[in-house]
Structures are given as structure tokens and as C-alpha cells.
């Protein structure tokens, strides 16, 4: 029969909205985790690029490319959260998109150095996959009401439009090409925001696992940072001094982990964004902010990681710290703290105002260090940053305001009880 008819039946299986049956949260599938790990390759390439070119121009390039890569990650994660992606065709498409991602990682380095066409093609392949997947989602397996149909129509239309604008960039030479990239990105973000703030009926499971996807990506990016730091400094001899400096660097990484995860709430995404009761107008802006604050979280971690690696290299080789090392370490940490603070500020119950103020002061202190810390030795800078972060951590630990979950665990029963 059968292969052909079976293939045919697979292709015709309408996509279904993910519907949870037993009240518990979903967890990320092994395929999603695999996809995230492939994304980390692209993130690692971006980090390496920044490491090679520690100038202001390099930082701007990094921010621009990171925003694009992150935006694709968000779109893929969102699709997998709303729709069921467990039929064989969806699995095959996701595997193909993973190879597309590897291709993307190979082109990201040249995006602003003569290789913009290859990068644009790589992004178009991934966006094209997403658009096809969305168009497939027109035919849902279950009945949708008029409100949901309207949402789907606008959402799919937006996807096609955004991909179309990106596709145009292939035909336009360079400065214009960058303009079209920016246009595509801005249209997408603005469109998503508009739809979510104006459509009460949206498609999305209350038991969303997007928060978990955010957490997983955060920890994978953090792990990549640890890898970069550890491999980058493996040349140093194991002396007590070197161990102490490494311990300081490691302490910063652990504290970054702590700031993100001790307030982690695995249900917050569904509660803020997919809510359709009378509070939706109040909650949706919070949800949108929560989502986009994560670009600061993730980019901040990568930049901090580069800063730590450069700082350790100078500390071990006895050289002065290059300005780029100081800027990446302090500004990366500031971006991370600002992003985490913003994302956690949006969760309910609200964060204690004193904690928010304390975080903001540390962000300010980091910026001050970035501007005026030019004479500090690498070890001293690392020690100051670690101590200041530790002081904030102690302050937050003492304040103990409305932390949603008692432990940074992923256990289901804790969240639901």
C-alpha cells in the first residue's frame, strides 16, 4: 500500500492545537531540547565573533545578528507551543530545520562581511519552513470558533507578509538588504504585539510550556558560556591564584543562574499571554514584555561570557584588560540584570519594590564600571563585579518577597500545589 498512501495520509493530517488533558503542564519534548541545542551552536558562533572583534562596531553587529537569531528561535518555539508537532511530517520538518540552523550558524559570521546573501538565504529557509507550517495550520483538526478563526487568519497573514519582506531582501544589494531585514523584524514584532493586544481570542494552551522553553534556553546559553570560559582558560597552570580567579568567574556564572531561576515560574507564560478572561487587557502587555525581555537575558549572558573569557585571559597572561573586555563583562551583566528584572517584574505577584530598586542600582553600577573602570586590573574588576552581585543576592535572599516557587526546581507538584 502503502508507503504512498501512508505518506499521503500523513500529509493530510490536519494540524491540531495542543490540547492538554490532565491539567498538568507539558514538558519540553526531547526534540525541542535537541532543537535548542542546535540553536546554541549559532549562539556560540555569535559569541566567538564578538570575542574576535571586541570593538563598539563588533558589539553592534553582535546585537543585530543576535536579535535575528533569537527572533527565529522565538518563532519556532511559539509554533511548537501552540500547535501539536508530533506527527511524522512535523518531526521531519523540524529535523530539516535543524540542519537549516547549522547552515545558518555557518553563515552568521559573514553576514556583515560580504556574506549577507548566504545569511539571508539561511534565514529565509527557516522562515519559509515556519510559514509553510503555519499555512498547514489553517486546517485544524478540531472545530474553531469565529474568534479563533479570525486570530488564525491574521496570524498566518502576518507570517506570510514578514517572510515576503525578508525574501525581498535577497534581491536588493547591501545597505538596502539590511534595511529590509530590519523592516521584516520590526513588522513581525509590531504585528505580534498588535494582534495580542487586540484579539481577546487567541490560540494557545493554558498549560503552555513556553516558560520552560525560556528557562531551558537560558540554561543552555549559560552552559555554553561555562564551556567557553573553561576551554578558553585551560592553558593556565593550576596555581592557587589561578584557581581563585577562576572561582570568582565561576561565582559570577552561578549567581547569574540563581538570579534567573530562583524566581522562575513555569506557568507564567500561559497565565499572562493565553488568558482570555476579563483580565486579558491588563495581563497581555505584561506577557509581551516578559517575552521580549528575554532577548536581553540571553544576549546579556552571552556577552557576559565573552567578557569573563577575555578577563580571565588577561588575568592569566598578566596583560592589561582590553577596553572591550571591560565593556562586555559589565554591560553584558547589566543587560542580563535588566532583562531578568524586567521579565520578573511582569510576573504576578509583583516583585518587591526594594528588590527592583536594588537591581536597578546594580545595573547602574555596572554601567559606571563600564564607563569609568578603565584603570582596574582584570582580577580586581572581576572581584568587584562578583562582590557587588553577591551583595545583591544576599539582599534579595534576606528580603524574600513574593517568590513564586520555593525552590528553583522543575518539579510539577510544587507549582500546582
Amino acid at each position: 500500500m502503502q508507503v504512498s498512501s501512508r505518506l499521503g495520509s500523513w500529509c493530510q493530517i490536519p494540524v491540531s492545537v495542543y490540547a492538554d488533558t490532565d491539567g498538568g503542564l507539558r514538558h519540553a519534548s526531547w526534540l525541542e531540547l535537541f532543537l535548542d541545542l542546535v540553536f546554541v551552536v549559532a549562539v556560540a558562533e555569535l559569541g566567538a565573533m564578538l570575542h574576535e572583534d571586541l570593538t563598539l562596531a563588533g558589539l553592534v553587529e553582535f546585537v543585530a545578528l543576535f536579535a535575528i537569531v533569537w527572533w527565529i528561535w522565538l518563532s519556532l518555539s511559539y509554533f511548537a507551543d501552540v500547535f501539536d508537532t508530533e506527527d511524522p511530517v512535523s518531526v521531519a520538518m523540524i529535523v530539516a530545520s535543524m540542519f537549516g540552523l547549522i547552515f545558518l550558524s555557518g553563515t552568521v559570521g559573514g553576514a556583515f562581511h560580504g556574506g549577507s546573501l548566504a545569511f539571508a538565504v539561511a534565514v529565509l529557509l527557516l522562515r519559509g519552513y515556519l510559514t509553510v507550517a503555519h499555512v498547514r495550520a489553517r486546517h485544524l483538526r478540531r472545530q474553531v470558533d469565529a474568534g479563533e478563526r479570525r486570530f488564525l487568519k491574521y496570524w498566518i497573514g502576518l507570517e506570510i507578509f514578514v517572510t515576503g519582506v525578508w525574501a525581498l531582501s535577497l534581491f536588493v544589494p547591501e545597505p538596502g538588504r539590511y534595511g529590509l531585514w530590519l523592516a521584516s523584524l520590526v513588522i513581525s514584532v509590531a504585528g505580534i504585539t498588535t494582534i495580542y493586544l487586540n484579539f481577546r481570542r487567541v490560540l494557545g494552551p493554558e498549560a503552555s510550556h513556553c516558560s520552560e522553553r525560556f528557562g531551558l534556553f537560558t540554561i543552555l546559553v549559560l552552559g555554553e558560556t561555562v564551556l567557553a570560559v573553561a576551554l578558553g582558560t585551560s592553558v593556565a597552570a593550576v596555581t592557587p591564584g589561578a584557581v581563585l580567579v577562576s572561582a570568582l568567574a565561576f561565582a559570577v556564572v552561578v549567581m547569574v543562574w540563581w538570579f534567573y531561576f530562583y524566581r522562575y515560574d513555569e506557568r507564567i507564560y500561559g497565565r499572562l499571554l493565553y488568558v482570555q478572561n476579563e483580565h486579558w487587557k491588563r495581563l497581555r502587555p505584561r506577557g509581551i514584555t516578559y517575552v521580549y525581555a528575554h532577548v536581553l537575558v540571553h544576549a546579556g549572558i552571552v556577552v557576559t561570557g565573552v567578557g569573563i573569557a577575555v578577563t580571565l585571559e588577561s588575568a592569566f597572561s598578566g596583560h592589561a584588560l582590553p577596553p572591550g573586555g571591560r565593556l562586555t563583562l559589565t554591560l553584558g551583566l547589566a543587560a542580563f540584570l535588566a532583562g531578568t528584572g524586567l521579565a520578573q517584574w511582569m510576573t504576578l505577584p509583583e516583585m518587591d519594590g526594594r528588590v527592583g530598586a536594588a537591581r536597578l542600582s546594580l545595573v547602574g553600577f555596572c554601567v559606571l564600571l563600564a564607563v569609568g573602570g578603565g584603570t582596574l586590573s582584570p582580577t580586581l574588576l572581576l572581584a568587584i563585579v562578583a562582590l557587588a552581585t553577591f551583595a545583591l543576592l544576599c539582599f534579595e535572599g534576606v528580603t524574600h518577597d513574593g517568590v513564586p516557587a520555593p525552590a528553583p526546581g522543575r518539579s510539577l507538584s510544587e507549582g500546582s500545589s
Partner: protein
Amino acid sequence: MSLASWAGSSLTGSLTVSTETGESLRHATWLELFFDLVFIVALAELGASLHDSLGVAGFVRFAALFAVVWWVWLAVSYYADTYATDDLLSRLFVVVAMFLVILLSRTIPDALAGGSLAFAASVFALRVLLTLGHLRALYMRSEARQFVQYWVGLEVLVTAVWGLSLLVPPPGRYGLWVASVSLGTAGLAVVYLGFDTIETQVSHFSERLGLFTILVLGETVLGVSYGTSFVALGAWAVFVGALAFAIVVAVWWLYFDRFDEQAVSWSPPDEDDRWLEARQRVIVNIYSHYLVHGGIVAMGVGLAVAVEASLAAHALPAGTPLVLYTGLAALLVGVALSHRTSPSSLGARPVLARCVLAAVFLALAAGWQPRSPVVVVGAAVCLLCALVAVETGRRAVTAPVPG
């Protein structure tokens, strides 16, 4: 409360066995995931050492050091699986262990080449930390008191043997390492099979094993594709890259399509007289992951070398097929064992098919020396795809997709 009394109470009072009564399984905590990611650094170092010395001797060194590092990972992870580690002291314990793992990864490249003392010392530090954690368990109220005492005694003994190796010069030192690892492995099996009443924690160890598998796999993808610029290279190299990626996907599918979250479960089965068999299965299931993880790392090194050779348009270095095919054989045997011993036991035929394919890979590793990257990687893709096709064909479309 004074600091001293707080320290005293947290040392003796708060350790419990993980028992969660919720309706669903425990899940790995974010701290455990973080710990695993740090351990990946050590595995990456091991892979890099293998990358630098392809060949039989290099492979044996890799397998031996991998066994030690994996055994440490197992011991720390299993500790966190057995006892509830939500208190502050336990978390500090994990954070310190992570830092020690970073130090450990630095000592790996020279561990069997003049730097064995540093390696032994960093493993010793981790083992001492773990033993202290276990000593806390003596203060725990437990129904399986004797079991816990024997287990803790075993930990102390194993750590002491490893500690002795610090005082003995190299050939003897390696002997003590082997003694310590064998003692730990055999002792654990004896304790679990010899005591009727054991601590039965609600285990999420299968998920930990699965997470570590996927992280190792992700490290492989990173190792193969990192730093490869696709702009400059030709269609041929992209083709080899795609083949390498196909192997990684096939391995992912082989492992996770039949992944069973309940494979490691110490809860007594329904018929009481079969507890011994059930425990044997769990122990084999856990240790089969040494082959899975080690095989994936070796395979990743082989693939990385093949992609590099095709990028530089060079012939393949001599030891590459050996590393790639032996790695694949090891992981096939490991996956077959782990699926065979899980509750939804894999049938005899698929197990046989996997073992036959492993034997074919071993034969290729021993006697085949092609110099073309495409041929080496392509042969592996064909064989693995044949296996996947046979397994899917047999089960038709009834099996659930991994999720």
C-alpha cells in the same frame, strides 16, 4: 539561632530520601541541569584528547578516562537522585562540585601523560565531597538502616582507595584507580542485590540519563559544526556535513524513540519474588549508559575529523574509521541494553539487529581503512538508516513519536 547551631542542625537534620507524592514523575531541577552542562565541559576535554591521538592507544586511553569521569558523574547524580537536595547546604554542595568538575576538566589532557597526580587529586576532592554528603545520610531516619550503613561504608572505602593512589607513583596509581572504580561498581551492585529492604526514592534518574544523553549529543553537534564557515566551502563538504548530521539524528531517534521515563524505578514490583530480577535490570540499564555516552563522544570525534578532512580536501587521518565505528558499535550495544532492560522491554529481534550491526561496525573498525571522508561517513549513514528502516517497518506506525 546561632550560626553554629544552624550549621549543626543542617548537617544532621535535614537530609531525607526524595519522596514526592504528586501524581506525576519528578523532574530534573534547574540545578541538576546546570550541573550536567558543567560536566559536558569535562566530556568535551576528553573528546579533544581523543581528537589529538586517533588510534588504538588513544582510544583505550579515552575509554579508560571516560570510565572514571562518567563514574564520578554517576555517583554525584545518583546522590542527588536518592536524597532530597533542596536545602541550602545540598545546593552549596552541588555548586562546589561543579567548580571541582571545571578543575577536573583542566587536568584531563595530561591525566595519563605526566599529570596523573593533578587528575587524581581533583577526582579525590570530588569523591571526598560526595563522601561527606553520604555521611550526612547516616543521621537520616530510615527504615533501611542497614542498607544505608553499608552503602555509606562502601563510599568511604572507595574514596579511601582512590586517596591512596595519591601516594603511589604512576603504574601503581593507575592500578589503584582501577581498584577504586571496580570496587565502587561491584559494591553498589552487591548492596542493591543483597539487601531486601533498600531506600526506594521516587527516582527521576531515567530523565537524568536522557538529559545527559541529549547534552552529549548536542556537544557533538557543536563540535562538528562549530567554526565551520559554509560560505567558503564547496558542495562536497556540505554533503559530508549533511551526512554527519543524519548520523546524529539517527542516533537521537534510536535512543529517544523508545525512551522510557520509568526505566529506573526501585519501587517493588507487583510479584514480590521478582525484585531481584527487577533490580538487576535497573543496574544494567544505568551502566549501559556508559556505552551510550562514551560511544556518542567517540562518534562525534570521528565525525568532526571527517568533516575537517573534507573541508581541507585532505585524506582521512588513519585512526578515524576506528574511532567512528567503535563509537557507533558501543552506542548501539548500549542503546540495545538500555532498551532491553527498561519496563517496556525491547523485543529480541531488534536487540539482535542492533548487536549484529554493532558487530559489523566493529569488523569495519578493525579491518577497513578507506581514506575518503564521504565513503566512511556514507557507509555509517547507510547502515544506520537500514537499521532505522527495519525497526520502523516492523512496528509500522503504531508506536508513539518521542515526546
